[in-house]
């Protein structure tokens, strides 16, 4: 219970303890005594003035009281009827509300079970996809290893090829040097051979 509400309740009770309760007893008694006094006074006056009419007056007073009681009871009945009507309308309102809430609850349950089913399917799909991903990752790792090996082999071959080419080039160079040297030698030999031929013909004529 909230403290401000308790405070109001407590203060109202405290107020009545001071203003109402100490006085209600004496004020009610006083009022009743006054009523009784008034009634007796009227009654006495009646008796004194018209003693013959007394019976008639008493019955008139009684009839008046009865009529007041009937009127009071009719008011109470009317009030209770109004209250009953109000509560009936509230019950019908709440029944309608309960029905609509039950309908909503059923719809929500159906939707919930549909969502649960969807979640289950998607979980399975996810598991399958994870397996597939695992296989692909393994294949990728294998392919990477193979690629590295091939690259190494290819590099080895290239190195060997380069060595071969270098040897070939060296050999070519050597051959060219030898050929040049030989050509030079051939030239010089040819020069030497040309001169004796002329001399020889000179010598032959002689």
């Amino acid at each position, binding site marked *: 219970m909230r403290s401000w509400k308790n405070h109001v309740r407590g203060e*109202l009770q405290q107020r*009545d303890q001071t*203003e109402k309760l100490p006085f*209600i007893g004496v004020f009610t008694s006083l009022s009743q005594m006054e009523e009784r006094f008034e009634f007796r006074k009227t009654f006495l006056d009646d008796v004194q003035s018209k003693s013959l009419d007394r019976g008639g007056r008493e019955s008139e007073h009684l009839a008046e009281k009865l009529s007041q009681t009937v009127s009071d009871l009719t*008011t109470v009945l009317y009030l209770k009827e109004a209250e009953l009507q109000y509560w009936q309308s509230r019950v019908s309102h709440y029944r309608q509300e309960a029905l609509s809430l039950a309908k909503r609850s059923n719809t929500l349950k159906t939707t919930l079970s549909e969502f649960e089913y969807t979640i289950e399917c998607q979980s399975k799909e996810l598991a399958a996809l994870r397996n597939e991903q695992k296989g692909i990752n393994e294949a990728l790792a294998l392919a990477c290893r193979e690629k590295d090996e091939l690259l190494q082999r290819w590099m080895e071959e290239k190195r060997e090829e380069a060595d071969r080419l270098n040897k070939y080039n060296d050999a070519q160079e050597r051959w060219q040097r030898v050929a040049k040297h030989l050509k030079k030698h051939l030239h010089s030999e040819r020069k030497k051979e040309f001169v004796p031929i002329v001399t020889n013909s000179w010598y032959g004529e002689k």
Partner: protein
Amino acid sequence: MADDKDVLRDVWFGRIPTCFLLNQDEVTEREAEPYYLLLPRVSYLTLVTDKVKKHFHKVIRTEDAEEMWFEYEGTPLKWHYPIGVLFDLHASNTVLPWSITVHFKNFPDRDLLHCPSHSVIEAHFMSSIKEADALKHKSQVVNDMQKKDHKQLWMGLQNDKFDQFWAMNRKLMEYPTEDGGFRFIPFRIYQTMSDRPFIQKQYRPVSPEGNVHTLGDLMKAMYPVALSNEGEPKRFQVVIHGIEPLLETPLQWLSEHLSHPDNFLHICVIPVPSD
């Protein structure tokens, strides 16, 4: 609402013990005895004082008896304010029973409205209910009621029938849950130290940001002088139905539970008594 029915009952059955004394200037055939009555806080003076009138008419001459009016310590009492408001405003610190002086002469026309019959009180009461409903529901609830429903409200007050009155009044206290309360709170703030009769403005139960307005918020907005600053001694009491609710009490709850039968929340600001 149903949980707080005891609060509604306590409010409805609040009583003030009162002693009516005839003004000494009235010409009487014999000495007038005082008349004692427990006055309902939520009713109106002229509605519950037929017996007082009858009592004093016995001792004054018929030709001297003009319209009856009441006064407390020199202040004429406005019959169109609820009795509890008159007591809280003028006499909350008096010794009980409350002594009211009864007059049958020199009616103060400048201060009081005439009240020749109960139908005038009924008209005033129904007009207040309609005004309150215009603020709370744009008059939709009171206009949807039938004449007999209006009569039931009035008869409930006139005959002091709590159940009869609340069977109908609960309709005036309903509101859509999503709104969080009435459109505006019907309230009146009375003060003793001003010539202005009361403060009445439009004030919502919930702020535009969705915060619940409290009694403190209302007083701060309408009459900040009534609230004391921290560290300062308290100068004024904010009184409703003879009690001081906490300032954090939500205004909507107060309107539903501490309103008078006319559907207005009557708030009295009175100086703290100097003992």
